[in-house]
Every structure is written in structure tokens, then in C-alpha cells.
């Protein structure tokens, strides 16, 4: 606060390499929607912050919108295009769904 000097931040070079916040995938269901749709991704340290950041960034805090956040690492997905290889052992690979940025029409921005 006023008049009290703030201790200077330690130089980044002296700190151990910073561990990135984990990646979360964001799913949004609009006010009149029936299901959650993948809206995008963000970095956050934990679930509480992931939800808040998702609310700020992907819905601009619109009310009545439901948000799910899931750690990207926790998602197991099959590839929608691989008809034959559905039972392939590589099914545990993490994919990004092609509907990456489709947000429901009734989620407005600003």
C-alpha cells in the first residue's frame, strides 16, 4: 500500500523453470441448448480457476450458460473419421475434436 516499498520480484533467471498450468478443455451449453459443445481450451492451475476463466473468456460471464471444464489429459477420445480403426489400441491417444471452436449460437459475446 501507499508509502511501503514492495519487495522486488526475484529475477526469473534465478527461479527454477516455471511449470506451466495444465491445459483444460472447455465445453459450453447455451441457455436454450440441449448439450455441451466444445468451445476451446485454456490454462488454469485448478478446476475452480478453470471454471472462472472459462466463464470470463468463453461466455463473457453470461448467465444461464452451463460450463464444463475437463483436464485435457483426462480426455480419452476416438477419432470420428477412423471407421475401421475404432478398436485400434491407439484409441487411448488424446485427440482434439474437430468441433474445436463451435460455440452454440445462443451464447452471445458481449
Amino acid at each position: 500500500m501507499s508509502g511501503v516499498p514492495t519487495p522486488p520480484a526475484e529475477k526469473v533467471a534465478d527461479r527454477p523453470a516455471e511449470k506451466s498450468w495444465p491445459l483444460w478443455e472447455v465445453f459450453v451449453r447455451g441457455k436454450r441448448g440441449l448439450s455441451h459443445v466444445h468451445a476451446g481450451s485454456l490454462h488454469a492451475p485448478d478446476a475452480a480457476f478453470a471454471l472462472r476463466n472459462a466463464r470470463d473468456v468463453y461466455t463473457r460471464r453470461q448467465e444461464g450458460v452451463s460450463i464444463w471444464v475437463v483436464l485435457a489429459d483426462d480426455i480419452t477420445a476416438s477419432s470420428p473419421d477412423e471407421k475401421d480403426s475404432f478398436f485400434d489400441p491407439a484409441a487411448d491417444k488424446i485427440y482434439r475434436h474437430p468441433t474445436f471452436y463451435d460455440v452454440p449460437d445462443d451464447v452471445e459475446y458481449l
Partner: protein
Amino acid sequence: MSTPVNSTNAPSESDEALPGAADNGPSGVSPEAAYLLGLADDAMVCAQRLSEWMTNAPQIEEDMALGNIALDLLGQARALYPYIGSIDGTGRGEDDYAMLRDERDWRNVHLVEQERGDFADEMARLLWFSAYQVELQTALSGSSDDVVAGVAGKALKEVRYHLDHASLWVVRLGDGTEESHRRMQAALQRVLPYLAELFDDDEASVTAAGLGVGVLPSSLHDAVVARVRRVADEASLVLPDNSPWRSRGGRAGIHSRPMGYLLAEMQHIARSHPGATW
């Protein structure tokens, strides 16, 4: 021969209140207006300080979050200023209040005018101010003045979010690393002198509360402290309670050093072009 002004040390016989003595300040005769001006100015000045964090926050997501909180508080001020203009007899608009009043006419508490410190300082300020606002707006939602109750109802949803945001951070900083714990604890100590003022029963508040329009600041104290203490406990932080001094005078237009600079920055462009539209 005219009466010498300072011929004796007897109190002035004039009916005019001495500068600073009247809690209503020069804003007008309506105590309700004076009371609401305190609320509006708190929000306005806090919004101004928070907006300084944009491009300076620890993470891009935090630039957005603090921007949102600043916008909410700015919105609260903008909702109140024109209403105040309609009841204090001046008919002033939002920019008249924000851009054309001198420091002595501002009724915010010192807490919100303090310069930005580090992120812990900001979260300490936001924790206390938003906890206070949650209790305040809850009470004001029952105001006998419909406009005030309406503004409070909307503000309440927003300030709950602000309190949540500050709480999330204070917990993480308190219970994060040794450095963050140290900084957060220090921030709680630095903000301490500015807290008592939030709960002072100044004349305008007393009158406004008596009319059912406002709420007695002292009545909010225990609930606010309880909220902050819960967060501090979860954060493994100690709530300091001992300060050799405390701020006072904001509600009477007596401010601390940073206020003049804040207003100079905020008002300079508007004041340089009298009467202009933007």
C-alpha cells in the same frame, strides 16, 4: 468596520460549516445524496485502481478478470451518479461527478484510493472491500428507496463474484509457496489501517439509515470480519488486528496523498476541454 475574521480564537459565528467539519460536504443539503455519493465514489475509485492492472496482471486471464471487476464497479458508480444528481438539486450527470469535482468533494474511503502495490496487496484490498460490499448490498437490497434497492440487487450478484475471486486468490497465495505466504501475510498487515473507516458511522450514513434508505456502516462490521476470517483461516493466514494508526476523513472529503494524483490523471483530459463531448 468589518469584523476581522481571526481577531479572536472564538469559533466562527457564521452558519456555514467549516471545510471538512460537515459530513455532508459541499455536495448539497440532502443526506441521502451525501450517503450515496460515498458509495458511488468508493466504487468509482476502486474501479480506477483496478483498471490500472490491465496489461500488468500476472496472467492474461487475470487481466480479463480484473477488467471485469473494474467494469462492474464502474457500472455501479454510473448507476448511482445520475440518481444522486436528481436528488441533490444539481441535476449533474455521471461525468460531472467523475471529471469535474475537486478532491475535497469526493467521499470515498482511503482504502480504495491507495496506489497499487503487488498482487497480494490488491487481493487484500479486494477481499476486504468485496466482503464489505456483499454485506452492504445485501442490506441495501431492502432499502426504502427503490432505485437504491434496484442498484443494490444487481450489484450484489456482481460483488459476490468479486469476493469469490479474491477468496480464491487469497487462499492460493496464503497456502501456496513460502514466498506467496509471506507476501500475502504482509499485504493483510498493510491493508489493516484502512479497514476501520469502512465501518465508521458518519453523519450522512446515520441519517440515511434512519430514513431506511441506507445502512449503518458499523452494523456490517462483524459479518464482514467473519467472512474475511473464514478465508484467512482456509489460507493459513493470520488476520492482524493491531495497528498504531487508522485512516479517517474520506467521507468528509479529507483524503490521503495518492487521491490528488489519481484525480489529476483521471480528470486531466476532460478538464482540458471544458464543455466538450466525447
